[in-house]
């Protein structure tokens, strides 16, 4: 469904992505792991066309979305994104955050959009908070709202960028449970995360990004348990036993 070939992204003189190849099939969850600065976030931003690629090709459902003639807004509508810092709109209620996209870009009436938003909020367990403003919510609730907002366009693909990294440990579970449920319901997901246990559980495919390339990839059982790349071995050691390596 999504293919990436030879993706390169430079920021000035600095090459962040140096040739990424990636395939994501319908209903799959692909997890990106790697240290900070390895290019996980940049890759996700490129997939959603928030960054202009320096080179390479990305296709979504067979369409080359890196073609400059493509309507980028229409492509983004087919891809949902959830950010590490939630990025909810603080001047809108939870309901309006979720109903915004279906109403102004999806062509739904206000009432239809709010009905869909309520269904999504119900699904993420926040129907009771619909009229509240984001600053009244806990981090976990805000991130679940952000997930509902990303689902409001009924996207083909969901991109999750370290969505639990800003949360208190006791709030991480509620967000991961929701992602697990989305995966079970057939959503195609590409996520960057440091939650290795979750990756092992849910991922169909794990990619280790290092210095702008996919240094190792495969099913989680192979990549996470019998890694061959020495940099990946070191990375996993640091993640799984912080303070000892």
């Amino acid at each position, binding site marked *: 469904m999504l293919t990436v070939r030879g993706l390169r992204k430079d920021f000035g003189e600095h090459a962040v992505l140096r040739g990424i190849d990636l395939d994501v099939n319908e209903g799959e969850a692909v997890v990106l792991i790697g240290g900070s600065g390895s290019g996980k976030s940049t890759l996700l*931003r490129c997939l*959603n066309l*928030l960054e202009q690629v320096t080179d390479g090709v990305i296709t979504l459902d067979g369409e080359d979305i890196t073609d400059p003639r493509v309507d980028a*807004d*229409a492509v*983004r*509508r087919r*891809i*949902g*994104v959830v*950010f590490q*810092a939630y*990025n*909810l*709109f*603080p*001047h809108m209620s939870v309901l309006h955050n979720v109903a*915004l*996209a279906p109403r*102004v*870009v999806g062509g739904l009436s206000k009432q239809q959009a709010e009905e869909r938003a309520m269904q999504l909020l119900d699904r993420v367990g926040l129907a009771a908070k619909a009229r509240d403003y984001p600053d009244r919510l806990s981090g976990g609730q805000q991130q679940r709202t952000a997930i509902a*907002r*990303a689902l*409001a*366009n009924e996207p083909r693909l969901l991109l999750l960028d370290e969505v639990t990294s800003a949360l208190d440990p006791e709030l991480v579970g509620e967000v991961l449970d929701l992602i697990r449920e989305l995966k079970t319901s057939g959503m195609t997901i590409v996520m960057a995360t440091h939650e290795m246990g979750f990756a092992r559980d849910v991922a169909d495919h794990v990619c280790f990004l290092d210095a702008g390339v996919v240094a190792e990839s495969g099913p989680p059982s192979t990549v996470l348990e019998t890694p061959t790349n020495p940099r990946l071995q070191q990375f996993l050691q640091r993640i799984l036993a912080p303070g000892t390596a």
Partner: protein
Amino acid sequence: MTVIPPTSAALPELSDVELWRRDFRRRQGRRSALIAALSSVVVLTALVLGVINSPGWPQVHKTFFDVHYGWSVFPAILRGFWLNVRILVVAEILILLVALLIAAMRTVSGPALFPIRALATIYVDFFRGVPLIVLILLIGFGVPNLHVHWLPKSTLVLGTASLVLAYSAYVAEVFRAGIESVHPSQRAAARSLGLSQSKTLRIVVLPQAVRAVLPPLLNDFVGLQKDVGLVSLLGVVDAVQQATILSDSSFNFTPYTIAALLFVALAIPSGRVADRFAARANRRQRAGAVV
């Protein structure tokens, strides 16, 4: 031992230390208030005595503060002032619209839109740079001399237009600061939902920008309230022009004092509204901290 549930409604008693601290703060608060009140009275008394005992005071009293004459010209000046208020309302609405447009033009991105950005920048540089008094004279006396039949010739319209041109340049910069204060991640979130650049600006960025700059915005409008008096330069019979006409015939400047008091009376409520918005913004950011 019984376990107290964490939801216990009753607040615990305050300790003696805290009670003493509260008492101390109360006493100190009273002392500060007393000192402030006393020093204010002393300074004000000194000022009033200084003015009244100055050698020129009897003359000043007669030409600037003639209560009887002032009362007789008050209705005429108030009528002129009503014109100032109407100009103010029309100008404020137009300024908001033009300024928003200019600010939006200055913040568009992309190389293709360079002419738009450049045009907006020139507009701001020019109308912010020209002294308002010169701008009013240039437009008020210059435009009618162009003899273009569809351009307005009314000095009232041209004076108001000058205010709009000058102030929209200032207010556009306030709006631009607000637009740039909205974190880029808000734009990223809006664009990722498929919103176009203009919808992102209108629905996500501008509402947050306006909230952020409301105090400086109101401050600019308090400034506009008094600059409305400058349309008198073109002969528009507003409060200032009315005062000039009256004092020219009576050789008494009390009409100017009346006009000044009317402008101050208008500025006070606007100033308090601006204060309230500023305090509210401040309170939100401080979130309960003491300093």
